[in-house]
Each structure stands twice: as C-alpha cells, then as structure tokens.
C-alpha cells in the first residue's frame, strides 16, 4: 500500500505565526502516519538583532524584552547580564535577588500556562480554565511588584528598577502557598489519571542521544534524561545561593515533559520562599555608563523553556556592535521533527506543544494540500482531530474529573 499516491503532503502553519519563532511543518502523511517532516521557520522574524545595533543599550533592554512576551524577563536578564559583564559592573546583592525572584515567578506563570495549553491541545479545556485561573494570581503579583502583568521592565543595566517593599514579601509567600497547593493537585491528577497518562505516554519520543545531538534544551532535554540546567551549571544572579534540585525524567516522551515541568514548579516554589526569606538589604542598582567599553560576553539564562543565550559585542559607544539572541524554542524546534517521525497526525498538536513553543496558545492556520486541491484548516481543527482520533481508540482525557472550588 505504501505507494507514492497515498502520501498526502500537509503544510502545517504558518498562517498564524504566533510568537518569537513561528514555524511551518511540511508533514508527509501516509494514512494517519507521519512519514516525513520538514521545517520552515522565520515567520516572525522582525529583525531585532539589527535593531539592537541601531539603538542604545538602554533602549535595547526594552526591545530585547519584547523578543518573547512570555519569557520577557529571560531575554532582558540575559541581555543586561552580558552588558554588565563587558562593563565590569558588580550587580548589587539585592538586585540579584529581585531579578531571580521575578525570574522564578515568571517560571511559575509560564509553566502553569503551558499546563493549560497542553490540556487544551488534548481536548481537556477544563484544565485550561483551571490552570489559567490559578495563573492569574501570579499575574496580579507581577502587576503589583513590577507595574505590569507582562513585559515587566524591571531590568536595567546594573540592577533593577523597582524595589520590593517589606509588605509585599508576605503577599508573595501567600500566593506561593496557594499555588503550591494547586500544583500538588495537578501532580496528583497527572500521576493517577490513567487516561492522561495514556494520552501522553510514548508520544513524541526523543531519546537522550537525539536530544544531545539536536541540541534540545530546558524541560524538553531534561525529560529525555539530559541533566542540564544553567541555573545550577553556570549560576547567575542569586542562583548560586539557593538550594534546589534539577528535575529530570527518563520517560523521553510528552508525559515526561509534563512531569518535569510540574516538578520544576515545586522546586520553584521552594526557591521563591528562600529568596523571600534571604532577601538582603542594600541598593538595587549601580551606576552604569552610557558608553560600554569595547569587549564581548556571552550570557546564559535558564528560561522556562530552556537555555536562552545572548551574545553582546560592545565597541565603546553607546550602541552595541552586535547582539545575537538564541531563544530556547529555536533550539527545541530541531527536535520536533524527530519527535514527530513515525508518529500520528493526531499527536502533532501535543508534541509540538510539549516543547512549549511560543505559539501553541494561538490558533494557527493549516493549509492541507492534496496535489491540485488546496484547503485551509485551523490549528484548532488539528487539535480536535487529535482529540477525536484518540477518543476512537479509547483514550479520552476530557472525562477526567476536576476537583476544586467549582460549582460541581
């Protein structure tokens, strides 16, 4: 049966190039099975790196923050760290703590967001509603601490721009306590719910060797047993003074990625508590020169999605000579093609979502093409297709009961 005629070529994306790295997958289908995948990236290329060269360091912090709206703090921190290293600035102790605190809160919001999106992709909308409701508490905290829900604008070269008042600290702890409770419930749900395990296990396999070869980062790599975490390996900000474990898993599949993220959430709560308790006194910023002396530096940062790498080269003026940004999703997209190989079309949404790309939460359009006949369909439809496909095989995650303060 595997004659050429039966292969349907499905270009997925990029009608909705959502975020930093919108992608387009050219998927060759044989019946329901995926026989080959090719990638096309760059739909969201805005030219930020060039823009950075044309603007001053102060302006660049804001530009870089908008590389990605979910991990905005990651990018701005990675950037200012590189600049600080070139300028030889000593980050004040308190600033390091505040930066780390915001970074970990960002991880909480990002992982909760991912959990909801993953639920949505496998047709479990109730989970989306629940996790995003919980997530709002972190968003409130961001609004209170930094003045904005997203794109916090708290980083500046040489420190942070806003201090945290003593009254705010207990409020942070309160939110952390509440969220920890909820996360425990989600972990219990993931661990005990048979259908959820069935739907996620064995899907999107990525062996440890492939993860290394393809340069996977973050939870994607750690779920394949690659024990890498920049926070521990190459500590920055206040991470050197915190106690935490790097969560890894050797399931090598989507379920493992969920487990890793949930485990990281628990670690993050403990880190936030440590940060709040050990928060040192002192200034929050050192004076930074407008003209950064010539030099170059590479900064690594463990964003919620994986390692974020920034390279900055200064030439003695107030504008950088070169800024290079490697966002984690770019590294992980390389693995997606591998994960999808020999998989089913129905698994595509969750496999792609499992690397936590910056686009999964929006609906992308998909053009289905069979020779002459061209058509468009939405990401939602692909999601629904996956849901249906699995239901027909007896796996339905939507039947999972949700506990909590719902009316039922």
């Amino acid at each position, binding site marked *: 049966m595997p004659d050429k005629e039966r292969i349907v070529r499905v270009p997925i994306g990029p009608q909705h190039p959502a975020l930093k790295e919108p992608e387009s997958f050219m998927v060759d289908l044989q019946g329901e099975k995926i026989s080959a995948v090719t990638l096309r990236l760059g739909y969201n290329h805005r030219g930020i790196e060039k823009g950075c060269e044309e603007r001053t360091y102060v302006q660049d912090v804001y530009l870089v923050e908008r590389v990605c709206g979910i991990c905005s703090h990651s990018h701005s921190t990675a950037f200012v760290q590189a600049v600080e290293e070139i300028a030889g600035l000593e980050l004040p102790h308190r600033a390091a703590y505040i930066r780390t605190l915001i970074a970990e809160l960002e991880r909480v919001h990002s992982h909760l967001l991912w959990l909801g999106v993953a639920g949505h992709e496998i047709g479990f909308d109730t989970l989306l509603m629940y996790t995003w409701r919980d997530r709002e508490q972190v968003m409130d905290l961001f609004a209170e601490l930094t003045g904005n829900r997203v794109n916090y604008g708290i980083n500046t070269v040489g420190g942070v721009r806003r201090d945290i008042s003593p009254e705010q600290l207990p409020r942070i702890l309160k939110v952390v306590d509440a969220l920890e409770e909820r996360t425990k419930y989600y972990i219990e749900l993931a661990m005990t719910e048979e259908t959820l395990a069935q739907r996620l296990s064995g899907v999107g396999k990525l062996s440890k060797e492939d993860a290394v070869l393809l340069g996977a980062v973050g939870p994607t790599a750690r779920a394949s047993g690659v024990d890498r975490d920049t926070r521990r390996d190459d500590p920055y900000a206040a991470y050197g003074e915190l106690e935490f474990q790097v969560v890894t898993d050797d399931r090598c599949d989507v379920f493992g990625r969920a487990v890793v993220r949930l485990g990281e959430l628990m670690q993050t709560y403990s880190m936030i508590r440590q940060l709040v308790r050990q928060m040192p006194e002192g200034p929050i910023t050192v004076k930074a020169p407008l003209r950064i002396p010539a030099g170059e530096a590479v900064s690594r940062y463990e964003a919620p999605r994986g390692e974020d790498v920034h390279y900055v080269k200064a030439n003695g003026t107030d504008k950088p000579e070169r800024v290079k940004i490697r966002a984690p999703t770019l590294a992980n997209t390389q693995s997606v093609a591998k994960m999808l190989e020999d998989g089913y079309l129905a698994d595509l949404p969750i496999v792609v979502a499992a690397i936590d790309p910056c686009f999964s939460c929006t609906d992308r359009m998909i053009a289905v093409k069979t020779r002459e006949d061209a058509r468009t369909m*939405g990401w939602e439809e692909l999601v629904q297709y996956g849901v249906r496909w699995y239901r*027909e095989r007896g796996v339905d995650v*939507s039947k999972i009961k949700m506990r909590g303060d719902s009316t039922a």
Partner: protein
Amino acid sequence: MTVGTAVVNILVFPGFLFLVALGLAGEFVDRKLYARFQNRQGPPWFQPVADVLKLFGKEDVIPEEADRTTFNLAPVFALAAVVAASLYIPLWSATSLFPFDGDLIVVLYLLLIPTVCFFLGGWYSRSVFATLGAVRAITQVFAYEIPLFVALLAPSLLANSWSISKIAAYYAAHPWLWLVNLIGFGVALVSLLGKLERVPFDTPEAETEIVAGSFTEYSGRRLAFFRLAINCEAIVGASLIAAVFLPFGLGLAPWLGFLVYLGKVLLILGILALLRTLFARLRIDQMIDFCWKVVAPIAFLQVLINLVVRELI
C-alpha cells in the same frame, strides 16, 4: 383537524418556531451550565438568539470547489428532518400531532437524517479536513444508533406498540412500570450524547469544537441552520426520551402538562451538560469500543428484562 390548524401546528406551535425557540433556550442552558462548571460566568440568556440573528446577517461564502447544491441543501434538510420528527412525538399531551402505528421507527430514522446531512455537507465542502470529519461523523453513527434503537424499542415490547403515543399512554396507565426501563433510559441518554455529537465529537457550543469537521467551510445562514438543527435535535431527542421513559403528567391540564414537559426536557439537558463537563463524561468517551462492548449489551439486557416482565404481567 383542518388544513389550516395543521399548517399552524407545523410552522408555529408546537412545530417549527416553537421548537426553534426551545432549541435556543436549550443551547443557553447547556452553555451556561458548561461555563459554570468551569468557574466562568457564561453567556447572557439571549446569547443563542443573538448568534443566530448575527449569522443570518452575515455574508454567505460557498467555497468554489464545493458542490453547491449539496452544500446549500444539507443544512436545510437537517433542520427540516428534525422539525418533522418533532411532529410525531407527544410533547405534553397524550398524543402527538400526527400519531400512527410505527411512528417511533419513523422518528428514529428522521433523527438519523441530520447526521447524514452533516456528513454530506462536510463531504461536499471538498475540504480535506471537512471530509475527514464527515467520514468520522458517519462512522460513529453505527456505534450509538444501534443501542439507541434497542433502548427505545425495549419499552415498546411491554406496551406492545410501535407508536410513541401509545407507548406513552401505556406507561401512564401503568405508572410503576417505567422503573423497569431505567437501564434503557441511561442507554438512551448516552446514545443521545453521541447523536448530538456533544461529548465525543463536535460539541456544537464548545468554542473550539464547532470549527472541526463538517462545518469548517460553512458560514452565515447555512451555519445558522446547522446550529439550529443541532439545537432542535437536542430538544427533540430529549422529548423523545421523555415521552418514552418518563411518562408523567400526561393527563394534566395543558398548562400544567406543559410545565411538567419543560421540566423533563430541562432535566435531560442538565444531565447532558453535566456529562459534558464532569461525571458522565466517563460514559461517552471511548465511543466505538464503548458503545459496542458496553452500551449495546446493556441495551440488549433491557430487552431481555422487558421480555421477562412481559411474561410475568
């Protein structure tokens, strides 16, 4: 019955317009409950009406590749079949508008037509994905239709009639006997979920799910017809189940009987919405497998029980 009253009956009350109104109210109940279960506020009461009016005012797009005739007619046929089915179901009176022996079978087949229309509409959209959705819709028919038939025919064994009105009258006369059919009631509810494509397939109101499958290429008026057809199907299906399995309040004064009927339909819709979010979503999931391995045998068990009971009384 004169031709004039018949026309009024068919078009206005309790036919087309009444059914549409009830269908829209049912949609609201379903969406509101669904939202509440998810900790949300949910839409205002007039939402389904606004949706339909809005859709009627929208531009109608017919894809170039689509088969125009089928594409145009499928939604209308779906709605027409549902309305036709409603005429044979006794709503709150003892008899339906046009009762005859064997109308149960006719209603069941009429209720099959909307699914066929979903299939045809999707298939002739000539969109690969709509086609896939259409094929799946028609596939699942075989899973839930058999249990539904068997479950609805079991009560008729006792009543010794294939007329819905007579079945209802029989159970109204033997009030305790409805308890015998409780298993069949459950089976029918589960099958109805499949028929409405509510949980396992395109839930008409779950924000994302209507996109999928057959309706992808539909817009404007035709989409509105499809939505109305599904809404009305929910009411007709609920009424059918209520008439056969819940034979209460048939002999009451018309206004009281009407209220009892509304209560019954509301109860069934509430159960459906609940199943959609929580508990009984446990039942409807593993569609094909589940229907054949669990639901169908249970339906046949109901037939067996009814045969035994029939011997006893």
